[in-house]
């Protein structure tokens, strides 16, 4: 109920939201002030815009197109390992991009497994760099997400409908027309929009698999303008373009998508009476096998390629790993300091601005914030010396929208259930936060912290902008090793990064649920 008294103040949350809004809008203003109106867009800028839109469209279409048969197979089959496979579909979200790329290179690269296999038949090796490499990597990351979104749609079809359809002896075509097509008309546009929006601000994938005049995204162009030409005006102009694009896409994605990808209850199999023909069974198994192989082979390749390199890791890699752990730790603390008060403010009913600040994080691009921060810091301090705190801060802001989606529903529940009791006991402010809010939010806090830590650990974005040659996080160090063609060392470091990211997520998520009462 609006205006009802709450045991927790909304002001810290509104303060946190103001900090986030100031960071995003302030850096944008700094960028805009530097953008030179006279220069306008060059040929290469238009090429970057075109490539960004093309790859994002292709990635979205392929991810969702492939996700439909996979989700359908998962929705109507029960087999050993089904729960595990569905849990695995959540893994790419926290998988460091650079690790996945090394895995994809090991499978699909020139010297990879697929090329070797083709070589046996006297065929040319496949080419992974360029548009199709970028799209391949994006499909690797977003096919699982799209599958989860669409699987959710399938499971929201009430079991009674399937019973009724079976009773009416509906065949595959009738089933499609009656149940599946209407559901997909609702679920698919949302999934398309979400994947499209994510792929728009692709940086690390384009940095490693794209590049050159024909495969540069806007984010990558910002980085190049900044890093190679030190042309702040052009970086600023591109930042404005990027922000307009991601902002519009994020708005559309939020408008058309209701579900949220982490959805609970996805492991429930609805009892079905259709699809028992040998053909449809074979078809489903084909899709399940294909998607599992597509997800698992690159991961297996990383483990296989990384194990020999792990023993020979140099001091610089361990140092970079130490930096990554520091960045990840700081970033997680910053995220919780922002998200917990903001979730409380939203739950207490002051939602408008607080939720807006969380959404702004979705539209903001790390490279744009990074460019803005550089412009702001440059006159007063050496930006390169601040690489670590800046990276931690930007990572926290990028993780904020996800954290809010996890924390807000629970915060609403806690205030709804214990708000009145706490008020009647005159338990407010810090006493309520300490004895009720934080303990009741523990599992969700752990989950959000785990996501933030893993995302930050694996992030290769703003750090590439700010790092001088003497400073590196682990993902950046891996990128440098790849650039020096030291693939074995890169694979070893990638395996280390994989362990660190997954380990950070596991420890924090488990820690939140440890000895937690329902």
């Amino acid at each position, binding site marked *: 109920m609006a205006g009802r008294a709450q045991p927790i103040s909304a002001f810290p949350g509104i303060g946190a939201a103001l900090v986030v809004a100031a960071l995003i809008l302030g850096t944008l203003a700094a960028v805009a002030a530097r953008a030179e109106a006279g220069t306008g867009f060059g040929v290469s800028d238009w090429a970057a815009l075109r490539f960004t839109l093309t790859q994002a469209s292709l990635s979205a279409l392929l991810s969702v197109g492939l996700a439909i048969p996979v989700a359908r197979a998962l929705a109507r089959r029960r087999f050993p390992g089904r729960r595990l496979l569905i849990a695995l579909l959540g893994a790419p979200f926290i998988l460091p991009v650079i690790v996945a790329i090394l895995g994809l290179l090991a499978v699909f690269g020139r010297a990879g497994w697929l090329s070797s296999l083709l070589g046996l038949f006297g065929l040319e090796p496949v080419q992974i760099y360029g548009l199709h490499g970028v799209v391949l990597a994006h499909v690797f990351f977003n096919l699982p997400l799209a599958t989860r979104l669409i699987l959710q749609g399938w499971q929201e079809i009430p079991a009674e409908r399937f019973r009724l359809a079976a009773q009416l002896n509906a065949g595959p075509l009738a089933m499609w027309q009656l149940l599946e097509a209407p559901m997909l008309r609702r679920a698919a546009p949302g999934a398309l929009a979400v994947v499209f929006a994510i792929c728009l601000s692709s940086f690390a994938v384009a940095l490693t698999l794209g590049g050159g005049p024909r495969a540069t995204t806007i984010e990558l162009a910002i980085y190049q303008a900044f890093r190679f030409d030190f042309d702040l005006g052009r970086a600023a102009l591109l930042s404005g373009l990027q922000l307009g694009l991601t902002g519009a896409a994020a708005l559309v994605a939020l408008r058309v998508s209701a579900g949220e990808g982490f959805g609970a209850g996805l492991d429930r199999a609805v009892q079905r009476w259709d699809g028992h023909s040998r053909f449809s069974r074979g078809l489903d198994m084909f899709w399940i096998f294909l998607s599992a192989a597509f997800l698992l082979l690159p991961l297996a390749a990383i483990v296989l390629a990384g194990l020999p390199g792990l023993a020979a890791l140099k001091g610089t890699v361990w140092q970079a790993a130490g930096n990554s752990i520091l960045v990840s730790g700081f970033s997680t603390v910053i995220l919780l300091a922002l998200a917990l008060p903001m979730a409380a403010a939203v739950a207490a009913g002051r939602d408008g601005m607080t939720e807006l600040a969380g959404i702004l994080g979705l539209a903001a691009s790390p490279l744009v914030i990074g460019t803005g921060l550089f412009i702001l810091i440059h006159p007063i301090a050496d930006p390169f010396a601040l690489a670590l705190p800046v990276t931690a801060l930007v990572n926290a802001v990028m993780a904020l929208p996800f954290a809010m989606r996890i924390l807000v529903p629970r915060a609403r529940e806690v205030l709804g259930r*214990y708000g009145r009791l706490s008020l009647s006991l005159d338990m407010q402010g810090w006493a309520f936060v300490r004895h009720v809010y934080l303990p009741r939010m523990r599992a969700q806090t752990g989950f959000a912290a785990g996501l933030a830590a893993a995302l930050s650990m694996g992030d290769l974005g703003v750090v590439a902008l700010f790092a001088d040659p003497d400073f590196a996080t682990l993902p950046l160090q891996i990128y440098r090793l790849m650039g020096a063609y030291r693939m074995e060392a890169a694979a070893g470091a990638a395996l280390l990064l994989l362990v660190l990211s997954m380990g950070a997520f596991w420890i924090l998520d488990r820690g939140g649920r440890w000895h937690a*009462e329902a």
Partner: protein
Amino acid sequence: MLKLENCRIINGGFAVEADLAVAPGVCAAVIGPSGAGKSTLIEAIAGFLPVSRGGISWNGADLTAAPPGKRPIAMLFQDGNLFPHLTVAQNVALGIHASLRLADAERRQVEEALARVGLADMGNRKPAALSGGQQSRVALARVLVQGRDLLLLDEPFAALGPALKAEMLDLVAELARESGATVLMVSHDPNDARRIADQVVLVADGRAHAPQQTTQMLDNPPPALRAYLGMA
């Protein structure tokens, strides 16, 4: 004396009017058809709903604008009266200090309250390890240490079986008698009223009526109550 003078309470789409007084030390049952506004009345007295007209006072002190925690009131809700992550002793201790920082004397007070409701040595357990009846007793132990003048019950025992509910009501009556507290309890069961209430406040047709003697009221119900009780 609890006084509601010319009060109008708006809860969403409907309103309840009340102009009544409850004498100190009385145990009054609030009965009436469901949806008539029994809980609305109680929530306004507790401070969770504002009154749009009139005022509420206790022994001459105006409560109308006081926040819930600052009123001389202890309240038990229909459910969720205990925090599941806190121990039994901590749940009781909240009635003394919301910060949970207790002096030794206050800690003894918690133990005594638990012993009084028959839960000695259960202080270290979590609510989930207790039965429904025992959980109600913990909530009553907290009411005891709160030591407020007024106790409001919004059907906290509704989920218990008949025998257990009767036991709890008797315990409430006993504790109220010992401390001299004034009790207002929402109920949809006239037997609850007969069991422990001296007076009955009838809430019907958007109006909370002045309290009447329980037996008199229930033996000779006015038309609104007659319809509710299913008497021809």
